[in-house]
């Protein structure tokens, strides 16, 4: 966590500008420097070129992941996510893939859990359509991590309307609100 982010007050919206390389200071994690926490929590933006002719296969996969999560709502719980966004876009004649996530733990900590999920839910099927993705990723976690780190594009600015709040805290607050409303309804 960067020094700038120690004051956590959810009621004060906050923005943070980030250095060009993405790090305030190089704090080593197991697989490399730890990406900083910002008012938008931890996150990554992975951008990679897709292999020629694979766009349809990737798009088709969106539906499959939708179904997977419908059947297994807590399937990705271990990643401590807020949001994931999957985007395809063109530059010139090439198509690029962007995978952007906002989550509550630094990615380095739960790397192996993420790799395990990739294979469990077939998310790898999308990544295998990206240029440079290591073919032996399943048995070569370091190569997988290297790919992710090499394709991570750090933000230069991040903003949080309710900064530093975890998904767990939000869910807790909503549960409390639901319980309170139920109680009020029952008192009618």
């Amino acid at each position, binding site marked *: 966590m960067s020094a700038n982010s120690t004051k956590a007050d959810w009621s004060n919206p906050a923005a943070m500008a980030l250095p060009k390389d993405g790090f305030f200071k190089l*704090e080593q*994690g*197991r697989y490399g420097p730890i990406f900083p926490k910002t008012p938008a929590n931890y996150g990554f933006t992975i951008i990679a070129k897709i292999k020629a002719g694979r766009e349809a296969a990737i798009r088709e996969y969106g539906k499959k992941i939708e179904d997977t999560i419908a059947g297994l709502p807590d399937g990705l719980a271990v990643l401590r996510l807020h949001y994931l966004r999957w985007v395809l876009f063109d530059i010139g004649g090439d198509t690029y893939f962007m995978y952007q996530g906002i989550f509550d*733990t630094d990615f380095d900590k739960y790397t192996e859990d993420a790799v395990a999920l990739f294979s469990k839910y077939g998310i790898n099927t999308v990544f295998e359509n990206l240029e440079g993705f290591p073919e032996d990723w399943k048995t070569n*976690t*370091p190569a997988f991590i290297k790919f992710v780190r090499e394709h991570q594009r750090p933000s230069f600015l991040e903003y949080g309307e309710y900064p530093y709040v*975890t998904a767990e*805290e939000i869910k807790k607050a909503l549960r409390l609100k639901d319980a309170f409303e139920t109680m009020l309804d029952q008192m009618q």
Partner: protein
Amino acid sequence: MADTLELDDIQHILLTRTPSLTGEYVFVSFRNPESGRAWLKGLAHTVRSAAEVQSSIASSQRWVTVAFTWNGLRALGLDDASLATFPDEFKQGMVARAEMLGDTGENHPDHWVGGLASPDLHAIAILFARDGAERARCLAEHDKLLAQSDGVEVLSSLELEATPPFDYAHDHFGYRDRISQPVMKGTGEEPTPGSGAPLEAGEFILGYPDEDGPPALQPQPEVLSRNGSYMAYRRLEEHVGAFRDFLRQHGQTPEEQELVAAKLMGRWRSGAPLVLAPNADDKALATDMQRNNDFNYKEMDPHGYASPLGSHCRRMNPRDTAANMNRRRMIRRGATYGPPLPETAPEDGVERGIAAFVICASLIRQFEFAQNVWINDKNFHELVNERDPIIGTQDGTLEFKIPKRPIRKKITGVPAFTTVRGGAYFFLPGLKALRYLCSLG
């Protein structure tokens, strides 16, 4: 490749706990490859396999283990191509990984003793002996070997002594040890209730399938890596005076103090788990291996009213509250060192503690994960400002929360009860691999 465990090639420490009450760790440096190999040749015949130790345990007096740092393998003359096939974290060594491991402040390698932070640390010889006389005899034999090989320097050694009472294994704080240990397939061992199903041997031994599939990325040549493993060594000083002061500060009566000790650990000092004995110690439960590990957290203690979310046991083995637990298990070996501090005595400033080995097939996925996430992540289980109260990196600024009805107890300014005084990553070769190393050059 046969998946039957090659028990006659695997060093015994991986699979066996020996009835030793004493021992010695000797840390050595090789000035040249020939001397290193001569030393290894002189010692290798004393290193026994798991099969041999299991069949002779009642009659044996001593048990020897040999392992090498990456620098040590190079110093023995292993070629660059082979050295390159070892994983990065092992090549870099524990010192280079200090920040990530939490070895900062007082725990920093700059303060380590015994030459363990030096790149000249090449090998460890581990001796466990049944008694002091046997230890002395073995050390004299080792001295003779050293006298023959002038290119081998002893950087330091550490004398191990069990702490009384000797009828059960425990540390200087008084916590019973050796209750929860993973069991691997192929050993014929039956896990105690609550310990989970036996795990694939590849989680702990190189060359076998692990919980994820067939072995991959093993160091080469195969003769070197097969039946080997990695050991993370940790010499942890235990500040017994500070620990007892803390218990007295947070507990008015001996019973309250015992409860504070139990809350830090997740088990009573007897070994009885808080999840099964939340209100009072239960010594019968503590010693009953059929019951003392038979619990979970998610259903039996989700909020930590029995075992606090940040307690040591709950961090080191979160059981059903962590993902992929089968990929995070470790084998622990080791012993206590230093004189016991009598219950009524004030802190005497003498170093005492535990000198332990964590054995696993992947240092980065198992040992380093536990150290980096379970032990030292301040936000483990959303605790925000806590680290492991027993072995986490503590600088007096963190807290420990004890969930309680109607309101929780929050202890602030948790002091460091332990300090890392040394550590290293070792490769633990099988017996054939030891002979291979002897034959280099």
